[in-house]
């Protein structure tokens, strides 16, 4: 009797579980493929991936980490919004509350702040990886362009977030930053007026930055990340093709790789195959890829927590428009530009950044031809790599100089003195 009650309960529970998640722990290859394809969230992965994709030294998971940081920022940001009041001077007081009154407020704030800084760096490194492996070559040209927009959005999100604490650091960084924008020819002053919602940084500015930071830019980012990752899924990761041996017999004999598309109802194969055609080179995304992604996510979360428990996010005195701190610095990722601005505002504030962005956008359309794609530092790409690396190095050096080697009156200082 108790036997039947027990087994009936189990059957009932199993039925309930099946209503949520139709496949159980996938034990057969068919289920492993189905697990990936039948889930809304997992089907951004292909069912089977080339071993090449799994090699951590190819991507260093930098795109994945960018995505994880975005999720961390969205979650912690939503939590912070429950206490934050976007109106001066309450804005500053709510930061103090988060720091001293709200349980775990300080940890959440630290995680949000440090993830934002990390994201700027990681997205930049991801871009370098994509360049150095020639991964923007056909058919991925446009995904590079989307990537450049994502980089700009990342900077925009960081910059708008910088004002929200309404402390001296925030106020003067945004003063310097928005005045750089005002140097743009013809429209500069109007752009600044629109951004500030007036002639000076005040309540209107805070509200505008708040809406941009909490709603508009994150939505744009979410949309573009989806598009970006979708295209990676369609085109496959670069490099898989050259590591596999695509023979027609094999492609015919092992229809598994085309079957994915059948299940997803996609008529045409993309130009580059998502899966390597050599089945010996392929493994199932469940569990090989998924497990690695979980490990990376875990590592990111652990590191963020340790950093946020040890290092406090800065909060200076409340913003005071009548008192300029000396030196007044923009956020660190703009200090390369500020260093240039110190020589000439038009040059550093407008001409150089505009040319840099245009050059980045044009990269895949100027550096044409498929040679050297999918490998680190391919010798065929020596010239492109040299140009890119030199420019990136100059930019990094300027940023370090602006951050560490500039003191009062923007005079040269040695950081160890």
């Amino acid at each position, binding site marked *: 009797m108790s036997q039947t009650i027990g087994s009936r309960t189990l059957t009932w529970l199993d039925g309930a579980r099946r209503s949520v998640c139709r496949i159980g722990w996938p034990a057969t290859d068919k289920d492993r493929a189905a697990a990936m394809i039948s889930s809304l969230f997992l089907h951004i992965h292909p069912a089977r991936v080339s071993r090449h994709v799994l090699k951590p030294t190819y991507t260093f998971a930098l795109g994945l980490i960018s995505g994880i940081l975005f999720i961390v920022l969205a979650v912690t940001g939503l939590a912070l919004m429950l206490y934050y009041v976007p109106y001066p001077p309450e804005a500053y007081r709510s930061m103090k509350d988060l720091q001293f009154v709200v349980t775990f407020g300080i940890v959440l704030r630290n995680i949000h702040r440090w993830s934002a800084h990390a994201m700027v760096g990681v997205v930049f490194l991801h871009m370098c990886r994509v360049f150095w492996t020639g991964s923007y070559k056909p058919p991925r040209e446009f995904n590079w362009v989307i990537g450049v927009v994502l980089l700009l959005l990342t900077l925009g999100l960081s910059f708008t977030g910088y004002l929200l604490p309404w402390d001296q650091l925030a106020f003067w960084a945004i003063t310097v930053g928005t005045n*750089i924008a005002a140097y743009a020819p013809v429209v500069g002053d109007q752009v600044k007026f*629109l951004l500030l919602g*007036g*002639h000076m940084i005040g309540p*209107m500015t805070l509200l505008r930055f708040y809406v941009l930071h909490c709603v508009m830019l994150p939505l744009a980012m979410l949309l573009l990340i989806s598009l970006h990752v979708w295209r990676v899924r369609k085109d496959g990761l670069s490099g898989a093709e050259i590591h596999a041996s695509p023979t027609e017999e094999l492609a015919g004999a092992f229809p598994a790789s085309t079957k994915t598309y059948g299940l997803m109802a996609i008529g045409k194969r993309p130009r580059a195959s998502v899966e390597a055609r050599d089945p010996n080179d392929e493994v199932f995304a469940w569990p090989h890829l998924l497990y690695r992604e979980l490990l990376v996510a875990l590592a990111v979360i652990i590191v963020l927590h340790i950093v946020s428990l040890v290092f406090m996010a800065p909060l200076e005195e409340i913003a005071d428009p009548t008192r300029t*701190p*000396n*030196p007044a610095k923009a956020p660190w990722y703009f200090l390369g530009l500020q260093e240039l*601005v110190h*020589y000439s505002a038009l040059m550093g504030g407008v001409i150089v950044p505009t040319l840099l962005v245009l050059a980045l956008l044009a990269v895949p359309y100027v550096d044409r031809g498929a040679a050297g794609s999918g490998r680190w530092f391919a010798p065929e790409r020596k010239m492109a790599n040299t140009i890119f690396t030199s420019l990136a190095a100059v930019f990094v050096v300027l940023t370090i100089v602006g951050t560490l080697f500039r003191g009062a009156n923007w005079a040269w200082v040695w950081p160890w003195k």
Partner: protein
Amino acid sequence: MTKKDVLPDPVRRSMFAIGCIAVGAATAGFLAATFRFLVPNVLYEPSRRFDIGPPSDFPPGAVTFLPDRRLYVFNGPDGFYAISSICTHLGCNVKRGGPGFECPCHGSRFDENGQVAQGPAPKALAWYALSLSPHAQLVVDLDQQVSPEFRLRA
């Protein structure tokens, strides 16, 4: 296969194009209106024209800094004049230093008339018109810039 088996396209391609253009135009108009919406009509900022007290508050030969207004007011031998403390480079507050003004942010220097002496600032500090109100108060108008010859005799 008879003709009946083929479902005709519900619209012609040209109609489809016209539809797309119409929706595009409507969206563009809507966005233009929204753009205008972003430009505030009323600014809840301190007035750009304000009085700063009677001339007797400013002793002859002295320089007074009004931090809230970001303004230096001079009472020189030929009369009163006002110079902005907003650095023309990137908007920091300049301080009195040397013969004129110094900016803490990127090291611009200005002479006693606010003309650029050194550094990245592209133009001179702004001079604003001063006038005397009917109640004998000094009035500054930030929307009226004047040349360094300006003096108000009061």
